């Protein structure tokens, strides 16, 4: 209850939140915030990944996912080969113009909540392939949460990117089923 007290006194100072406080009241707000935080904690440590691997970065992904560097330490061990079961879309390797519709379909088939990681320079910006065939960054096709640079990125960079994504998930506003959606 101590946390709730600190939270309500903090929100009183902000003028924007005082309106919300009148409507919801402190206990409701406390529950929502705590639930949000618990959901964030649960979601960031149970990332089911869909590896969308098209090129040489896949080798680096394998070494990052296997025993030496072990993505499973951070709760991202499960590889799901169906987008419907995945939370994290790992786009690893060059995405060509011909492949762009496939990538978009895979992203749209994933169920919420979902996050996208651009793995390697090619997915971030097209990399060395500044030509007619390659999409110059996958953020032209789908929204991206974390960019991991490198050609290919070292496994440490990948782990750092994963930690950054976990931090983002913990602090973002969570969506859940019975919550009122924003219009």
């Amino acid at each position: 209850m101590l946390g709730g007290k600190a939270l309500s006194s903090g929100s009183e100072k902000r003028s924007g939140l005082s309106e919300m406080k009148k409507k919801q009241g402190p206990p409701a707000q406390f529950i929502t915030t705590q639930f949000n935080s618990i959901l964030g904690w649960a979601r960031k440590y149970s990332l089911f990944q869909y590896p969308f691997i098209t090129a040489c970065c896949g080798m680096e992904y394998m070494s990052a996912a296997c025993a030496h560097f072990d993505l499973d330490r951070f709760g991202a061990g499960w590889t799901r080969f169906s987008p419907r079961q995945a939370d994290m879309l790992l786009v690893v390797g060059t995405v060509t113009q011909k492949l762009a519709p496939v990538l978009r379909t895979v992203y749209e088939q994933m169920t919420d909540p979902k996050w996208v990681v651009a793995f390697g320079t090619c997915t971030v910006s097209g990399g060395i392939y500044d030509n007619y065939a390659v999409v110059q960054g996958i953020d032209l096709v789908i929204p991206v949460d974390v960019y991991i640079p490198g050609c290919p990125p070292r496994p440490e960079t990948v782990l750092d990117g994963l930690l950054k994504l976990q931090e983002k998930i913990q602090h973002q506003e969570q969506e859940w089923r019975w919550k009122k959606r924003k219009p």
Partner: protein
Amino acid sequence: MEEKKTLDLLKQTFPAVVKEASTNLGDDVVIIDREGLLGLANFLINKPHEYTMLLDLTCVDFLGQKPRFEMVYHLFSLPQNKRLRIKARLEENDLRIASLTSLWKNADWLEREVFDMFGVNFEGHPDLRRIFMYDCFEGHPLRKDYPLRKRQPCIKFRE
């Protein structure tokens, strides 16, 4: 001495087709008229030469020169352990050459690649359509006059 023999034989058998014959770094090179390609290839694939392998088939764009395109065929003879190159020049406004799919099966995809990248028409090809680029793509990207930064997105991009 062996390579001399093949080239001499080719010159004797196809005097109207073979324009130039030489040996470059141990490989035979024949520059021919495009109309005689199929007959020449049919001659080379059979005994005694047995160039039974089509290693590669590609095209070169000499932008600015008069016959602009040049088809290059790389053949390999397993019994002789020898390579042979056939070259044929093509005019820009009349880009067509006989298909070799009747002699070598792998010519199918190689010719589709050349059609996709350069726009050369292969007469007698069973299924001449793009192999690398998507169907809505316009132009031929490996031609020297294709704009360097021209993009043709397949789907509508965000933003």
